[in-house]
């Protein structure tokens, strides 16, 4: 297990290096001079050159890459071309909205998906199964912006249970949590639907395995066999989906952030792209890649904890 973890860590490091190189050079080959862009077309060439020197743009590719990476490692993400403030500060405020939102949605998604997926598999072919299968089909099909609007118009505008949007900040934890609830529910619905279906089909596969019959022959009840033997074996595909969902939720919530006026990472990246604020794009993308690779690493470790056969391969 230790060797497995070390090998995964090594692969995590290598992935990060590869990703940073790729992101840096992709952003580099995009045409356009950021210094010119910041100063506007009326600026003098001298002013632009001065700014280029100040931003380190006149140095070679390698040394600029090195400056960028060593900056990242020290928490220095550079200065936004558009707003002239450190990117780290801009990101910090946003991360504390996007990260809790993603975790909240993931928690909801799992909390909904596990029980209904398990019930559907245990009572295969019953009305409960039909209900789950139909409901999740609908959950996957409904566009989340539409669902968001429905939720806002009913729960916020009609019954005033939640506010229609905005984020009060974490100084008031309860109010902040409340502000994130509607967006989290909206984000969780399709994810929960997918996860429930994966849970169900994975569990059904496991239930038809020979060792389930062995468990029954030992005297386990149908439910006991499910709890003690099927669940853990059915977790592998479910974990994979959870990992993918977290990565998606972290940066893919842009529409929902817009609808609920949340100051999250998604809307920040969107703005940065339209304003050609490439240093922000670069840094935030790197941050997201880091998050995804980290989650993948955690999922890998969990795999190995769940299934001893995976510990030997690395």
């Amino acid at each position, binding site marked *: 297990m230790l060797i497995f973890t070390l090998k995964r860590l090594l692969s995590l490091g290598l992935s990060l290096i590869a990703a940073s190189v790729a992101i840096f050079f992709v952003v580099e080959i995009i045409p356009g001079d950021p210094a010119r862009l910041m100063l506007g077309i009326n600026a003098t060439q001298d002013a632009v050159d001065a700014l280029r020197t100040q931003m380190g743009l006149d140095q070679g590719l390698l040394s600029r890459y090195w400056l960028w990476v060593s900056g990242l490692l020290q928490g220095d993400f550079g200065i936004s071309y558009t707003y002239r403030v450190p990117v780290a500060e801009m990101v910090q405020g946003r991360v504390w909205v996007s990260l809790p939102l993603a975790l909240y949605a993931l928690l909801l998604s799992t909390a909904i998906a596990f029980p209904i997926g398990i019930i559907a598999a245990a009572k295969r072919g019953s009305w409960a199964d039909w209900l789950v299968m139909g409901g999740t089909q609908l959950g996957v099909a409904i566009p989340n912006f539409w669902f968001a609007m429905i939720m806002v118009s009913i729960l916020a505008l009609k019954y005033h249970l939640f506010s229609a949007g905005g984020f009060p900040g974490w100084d008031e934890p309860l109010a902040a949590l409340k502000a994130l609830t509607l967006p989290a529910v909206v984000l969780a619905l399709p994810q929960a639907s997918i996860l429930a279906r994966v849970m169900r089909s994975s569990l059904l596969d496991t239930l038809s395995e020979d*060792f389930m019959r*062995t468990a029954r*022959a*030992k*005297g386990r009840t149908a439910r006991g066999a499910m709890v003690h033997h099927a669940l853990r074996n059915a977790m592998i595909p479910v974990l994979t989906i959870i990992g993918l969902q977290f990565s998606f939720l972290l940066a893919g919530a842009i529409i929902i952030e817009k609808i609920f006026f949340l100051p999250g990472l998604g809307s920040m990246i969107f703005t940065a792209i339209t304003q050609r604020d490439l240093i922000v794009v670069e840094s935030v993308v790197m941050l997201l890649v880091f998050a995804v690779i980290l989650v993948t690493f955690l999922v890998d470790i969990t795999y190995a904890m769940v299934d001893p056969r995976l510990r030997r391969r690395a």
Partner: protein
Amino acid sequence: MSLLNINALKLSIGAAEILHDVSLSVDAGQITAVIGESGSGKSMTAYCVNQLLPRGARAEGKVQFNRQNMLTLDESTLCQMRGTDIGMVFQEPMTALNPVQTIGAQVAETVLIHGAARKVEALKIARETLNRVGLPEAQFPLSRYPHELSGGQRQRVVIAMAIALRPKLLIADEPTTALDVTTQAQIMDLLKRLVQEDGMGLFLISHDLGVVADVADHIVIMRKGKVVEQGATAHIFKHMLHPYTKALFKASSHKPDRAAQPQNTPILEVKNLIRDYALPRKSLVGSVPTFRAVNNVSFTLKKGESLGLVGESGCGKSTLTRAILGLEAIQGGSISINGQEVQAGHTIPRALRRNMQVVFQDPYGSFNPRHKVARLVSEPFHLLSTPPKGPARKAAISEVLTAVGMHPEDADKYIHEFSGGQRQRIAIARALIIKPELIILDEAVSALDVSIRAQILDLLAELSDKLGLSYLFISHDLSVVRAITDRVMVMKSGEIVEEGATEAIFQTPQHDYTRALLAAAPSLEDLMQ
């Protein structure tokens, strides 16, 4: 009164009646073997005893165990009895264990479910039981996982789970079918010993008369959901009143008539063949460790000859087959087909490759289910530079299908419409269609029932007489190899340890390993005498 008395048992699943009036009994300390081909209802009869029937199954009649009718008991009583009074062992040891739990936890589970002991005590019982089934603590600590054990060792764990609470009745459903002959003999000995030590009744299910013949006290022959004959083992072997019993015995030791005479020219020559597999790296530096699966193997197969290759799982016989077929690169030696040599590091040219075709073991897994028979059978045409088209292609397909005893109309059907035996005929047709000179049969009859197996062996003999085919016949089943080959090679740990004329090897084996194999293999012929 017997321990288990099944009386006039009927079972239907949906509208289909699976069992009709089955009656049999198992006595304490005795072994009752139920024999039958697939679909005979032997396993279903066993599942009626511990009531682990598939959904929608309805059983009628009486299954009297310990003075209780199992058919009338409620689920919670049944759960208490399973594992305590009735243990069960399954066919497939590779999948019968939970892959994510240790063997200790799984054996102790039997004790814990029934509240027979606390955790510490249960683990102690698990340890003792594993010792009893021949898995001593030194090599097999409780913390082992199933994937770290071989098939035979896993089957011992399954047996340990079944007997941990010393049940009165043990049901064993084809417990050795998936195992090698030497392992099979050991597992049968173990079961026999446990029956004697614990005074258990053993309900033993098998399709193989040879396996049960020298352990069973009582034999029940089943066919299509009915008991056709039953009685004391010696009595059954002596008298065999029912025609089906006779047919079954005959098919089990069937020897096809073969007229073909091997010629002197070789079709296949293998010289010093070496096949290495890369193993996972142990450290980050240094060379990749390898495992030599085939070590310096040389042999010659003549035109018209049938050559057997026997050995246990993992001995390298399938690897050798894949190397000969050019499916995997070899690391040393050469393969000559019709006198044309292909050295290691070169691929076999298509013109040579077309002289060899293969038939695999699994008639269910070796066909693409979405293609029609015509397309499946004509697949090897890609080896020809000018494959026949249109009516010529159709004629070729009809011809091979007829040659293997199928109808030309079968070309338009899908593979799921055929039985295992028919599929194996189609597999042979697929091999024949480009008129190869050599067919490699990789366990080609191992998955078939004995009566079907006899038919396929006859077909193979007939085809080799008619077409002058050579066979490389790979099997773990010694009696089949004896029936169909002229010469035989015995393989162990990647090497050929003995080679010679089939009868000579079977009668006077020279190598210790060959002797051990032959001693472990059940032979009906010896028993009949």
